[in-house]
């Protein structure tokens, strides 16, 4: 656990000394602000629903860019071999990097707390709905980060890793839209189960759905497992 903690701290430190961090944070908050003001002017609601729904899609594209360097960069700079030969358990390395990325997501989301504050100043928002909305977004971040880690473990090129991450997550986004066009009930139902938007939607309405929580946790675990297998395969490939 100490090793995982050390990797966690190192990853966070590396991130915040790089200008990329601030560009990333700035772009994210600009998008959040845009979606928030759009939601307010479009519906006049004291709600973050439009902002949170759009942010979940934006993060689907942004988070693989955040996680792309994790393994790809290590391999390119030659530190990966060092890590693999050091007495560092694979799971500790994986958890350390995953938690570090998730902590960054928490920092990103904390940055958006200004918006509920604005709603509270001008209106009477439903705090239960806001709370579950943030919980849903955090769960989505956890799944996206693990998918990003997996894509990063597949290649030496960070940019390629980022693109692979987006491609991996894209079906989860488009499944919802395709399901609306499908006539077959069974297929439509299957696509809805796969859809990220369908899974995150209950949270944005103020509902904690055990199946949706399970979906995000299982997707997270699934990609972390695949990352573990992918890194481990380096030992016998």
């Amino acid at each position, binding site marked *: 656990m100490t090793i995982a903690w050390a990797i966690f701290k190192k990853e966070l430190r590396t991130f*915040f*000394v790089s*200008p990329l*961090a*601030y*560009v990333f*944070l*700035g772009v994210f*908050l*600009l998008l*959040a*602000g*845009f979606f*928030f*003001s759009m939601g*307010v*002017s*479009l*519906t*006049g*609601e*004291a*709600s973050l629903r439009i902002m949170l729904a759009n942010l979940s899609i934006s993060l689907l594209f942004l988070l693989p860019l955040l996680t792309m360097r994790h393994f790809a960069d290590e391999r390119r700079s030659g530190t990966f071999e060092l890590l693999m030969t050091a007495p560092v358990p694979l799971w500790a390395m994986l958890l350390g990097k995953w938690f570090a990325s998730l902590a960054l997501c928490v920092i990103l989301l904390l*940055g*958006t707390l*200004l918006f509920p504050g*604005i*709603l509270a100043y*001008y*209106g*009477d928002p*439903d705090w*239960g*709905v806001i*709370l*579950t909305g943030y919980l849903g977004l955090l769960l989505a971040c956890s799944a996206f980060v693990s998918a990003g880690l997996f894509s990063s473990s597949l290649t030496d090129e960070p940019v390629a890793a980022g693109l692979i991450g987006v491609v991996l997550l894209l079906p989860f986004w488009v499944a919802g839209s395709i399901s*609306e066009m499908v006539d077959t*009930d069974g297929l*439509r139902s299957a696509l809805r*189960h796969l859809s990220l938007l369908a899974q995150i*939607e*209950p949270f944005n*309405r*103020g*509902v*904690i*759905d*055990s*199946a949706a929580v*399970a*979906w995000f946790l*299982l997707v997270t*675990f*699934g990609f972390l*497992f*695949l990352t573990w*297998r992918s890194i*481990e395969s380096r030992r*016998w*490939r």
Partner: protein
Amino acid sequence: MNQIWRRRIAYGSNATLVSVMIIGVLVLVYLLADSQRVRWDLSADALNTLQQDTEAKLRVLDDEQVPVRITAFTYQRGKDDTVLRDRAVRDLLVELDLRSEVLEYRIVDFDRERLTAEKLGVTDYGTVVVQRGEDRIDLRDRDMFRRNPRSADLPFDFLGEGALSRSFAQLLAPTRRVAYVLQGHGEPSPTDRGATGLSELVTALDLERYEVAPLDLLRTDREGRGPVVPEDAAFVVVAGLRSGLTPQEDDALLAYLSGGGSVLLALEAGQAAPSFLPRLGLLQLEGVAMDTVLVFPFRDRPVPVYRDHAITQALRQSQKISVLAAPAPLRATEPLPEGVRHSPLLVGGRESWIERGGPSEGGGAAYQAELDAPGPTLMAVAVDLLPGGELVRRTRPPAKVLVVGDAEWLTNGLLLEGPGNRDLAVAAAQWLAGDEARLSATVGRPTAQRRLALTGQETERIRLISLLLLPGLVALIGLFTWWGRRGR
């Protein structure tokens, strides 16, 4: 070399197999979680929690295992509240879908999928089509949403759950029942599409699975027996008589009531009332019920006040007004005949009176103390005839009569003009037919949005803060960090 490849293939196959198995297990775990899902609604108004009545109907639908298909067409893009309306419908359908095994829904973009709209014969934005087997119910915008008169910041209430719940109740009704409309005395005709006809009422009742058929009680059958009300009658409508009923017709209707039947008796001011009206404990008074305050839009078109009753429950809740045209005032006899129980349904406001002629005031009728009678006026009464009383045999179920001092409210001209007239007619039909369960289903919990009351200046301020403050702050921190680490 071969050994290395063999090792790679062995390890690779093993890794792939294990990965596929683990993913399979994850999918199974999700399916298990999906089948055993638990939901916690943390919204302040429990907006995502269905009412018990709706849940009960979904359970009945599931028990019968007949698929229910809901096709919801979107609202027109670019209009005010389109986003909110579409979202409210979608949210409700998601909740219903989660709680039913037989329900399937589909959201159709009305502009993009015209073919689907044409196939279903849908011509209006926001229509929701509920299908079960051969049966189908269309819900329109007015069924799903209600303008909110209380506040400009809350533009509408969403009544979708109540509307869909009612449609489930209609689909669950086992058979179509027949409402007979008495003919032969100059009454409005069910087939007449003009302003004085009843074709709109027929359409409204048809949607509620009541078939409307004319009833002729003047003719005898081939064996010379006097005519009787058919056994399959859910209720009989006697509306707008221009001449009195013959003794034979009176007898037929009384015989029907004595067996536990139901009659909607819609009178006309100045026209003959059935002779059995006093036996119901009611008298039709001379004159016309008028009002100066509660009118729509003239004094002889009073907007009655709803009294508490199963028929008016939904109307009171949804605050929909009904309109009568020059209604005949009613009065209860004292004492009431044995076995007769009255429930006043529609009464005039405090400014109502019974107009009996005399000079007018500014082109409209005015109260003259020496000629007219003061209000409040009684315009409709629900009458329960108990078994063992004067009219209903002891062994039969109670009979029901709804007496309204006006018949014009049922005609095409007024049925759609009065916002609540259609609902009042449908609720009356359901009460008379003994479909009280369906009456309760019409009561939906309205849900409104939490809105921000912002001026243009405030909206602009929010936009500036949202777009500039946080990104600017991050850029500043980034600059300081870069400056501090310069040259390291």
